């Protein structure tokens, strides 16, 4: 049929646009300046801390927070592009780079938790016999015991790579498994394969019921997982809510918030998950 049904086809896109406009109205949020976009990591979000702190912040200030939890790399990249207003991550080396590049600014310590090396209870590589993380990794590699890595350039993965480097080991081979996934999934794989892994304590605690892995090494200073908050440089892009970002960062280091952080985790895990360290010097942590 060679009929031109042009009238209908002109009205259809118009109708679609109208519907879309309606949709936007129906589903629209508040005015942009009331929105603060916080970029953080999945593991931070998974601890549940933000589920407590963010509503507190919103009530106090009237801002509406959009928490975007993605991988560390993406969280920092988004913030650097100006697609977030404030970042809360735990990858000090990377963070310092971004600050040096003036993409992010006003880096302030917020809290830390720590990493632990977990593994099968039998501990075939005898990790529990040493106190230092680097030593433990050397033992694992020597024994050829399986190790599951995040493999995703997250804060955890970056720390892990630093430790391997310090141990002078190029981690490769059948015993070294890169999951490319989040902490929970990585622990799950380690659990299934009776392998060792480097995990943040919070995630380990959250998963502990499902795991037969035990904590074999803890307390070594390099294993500190330090969280900092950084504001996005308003010169970095259009529409950055600098005031909102600053307000959130200020909130994270405020005494009341720090107190809330200190007590977080007690009911759920039996012990607090984080140590609030706002205002302290990084070198002094863990003492």
């Amino acid at each position, binding site marked *: *049929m*060679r*009929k*031109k*049904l042009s*009238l*209908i*086809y002109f009205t*259809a*896109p118009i*109708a*679609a646009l109208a*519907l*879309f406009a309606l*949709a*936007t109205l*129906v*589903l*629209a*949020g508040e005015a*942009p300046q009331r*929105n603060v*976009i916080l970029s953080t990591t*999945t593991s931070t979000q*998974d601890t549940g801390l933000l*589920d407590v702190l963010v509503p507190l912040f919103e009530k106090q200030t009237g801002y509406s927070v*959009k*928490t*975007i*939890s993605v991988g560390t790399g993406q969280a920092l990249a988004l913030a650097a*592009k*100006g*697609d977030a207003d404030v970042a809360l991550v735990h990858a000090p080396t990377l963070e310092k780079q971004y600050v040096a590049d003036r993409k992010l600014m006003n880096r302030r310590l917020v809290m830390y938790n720590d990493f632990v090396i977990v593994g099968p209870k039998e501990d075939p590589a005898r990790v529990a016999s040493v106190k230092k993380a680097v030593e433990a990794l050397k033992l694992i590699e020597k024994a050829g015991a399986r190790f599951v890595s995040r493999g995703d350039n997250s804060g955890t993965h970056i720390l892990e790579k630093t430790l391997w480097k310090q141990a002078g080991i190029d981690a490769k081979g059948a015993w070294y498994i890169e999951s490319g996934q*989040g902490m*929970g*999934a990585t622990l*799950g794989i380690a659990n299934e394969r009776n392998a060792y892994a480097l995990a943040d304590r919070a995630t380990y605690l*959250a*998963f502990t019921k*499902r795991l037969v892995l035990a904590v074999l090494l803890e307390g070594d200073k390099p294993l500190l997982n330090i969280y900092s908050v950084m504001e996005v440089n308003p010169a970095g*892009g*259009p*529409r*950055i809510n600098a005031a909102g970002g600053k307000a959130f960062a200020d909130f994270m280091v405020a005494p009341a918030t720090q107190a809330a952080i200190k007590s977080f985790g007690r009911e759920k895990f039996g012990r607090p998950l984080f140590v609030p360290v706002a205002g302290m010097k990084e070198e002094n942590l863990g003492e």
Partner: protein
Amino acid sequence: MALIWDGIVTAFSLVFGGDAEVWSITWLSLKVSGLATTISLVVGIPLGILLAMTRFPGRSLAVALVNTGMGLPPVVVGLFVSIFLWRSGPLGFLDLIYSPAAMVIAQVVIAFPIVAGLTLTSFQTLNPNLGLQLLGIGASKPQLLWLLCKEARLPLLAAVMAGFGGVISEVGASMMVGGNIRGQTRVLTTATVLESGKGNFDIAIALGLILLALSFAVNFLLTHIQQREQIRWPKPS
């Protein structure tokens, strides 16, 4: 197996226990995907009919594009829509990123080629002279379109169901453009990923079951309309 049973039990307690968060997540899923599907129908069906019934230079290219669009990976769509909607992007001034509207946009991009492509083939199953004959007994152009749609309603409703199914179940695009923000852009699929990532498999399974039930309910309704043979007409005396 215990895991699945846990999931079923959790699902019931969440739904019938009136867990507000689960209900709001479910409602948002329905709103976003429902709206996206509706817009896709408004755009996609006329496009499909146009491609089926007219000939113009470049038509085969357009059809090939539509067919390619039918298989677009949602996560790629999400990435591209994000690039546009980010503050740093050309449409950043609309402030749509990380909002349900952004999810609707991404889902429309996913669904409308499906709807258009299947509408195209459904109209191609019709006799090419049928339209002429209907005009020949006095149908106006809008009446003609309506009659052809009714005549092709079997494959056409399949197009609707495919469009809806494609977006209610997708997670990649919703995650990227929506951000899975609690209370704002968290839908059943993204919530399922979140919960299983946290290790809460019972909740994850529960959410998955709710999603399945939702999808089934919608498709049941559409199938009922599709398969209905009798149109209400008086029996001649």
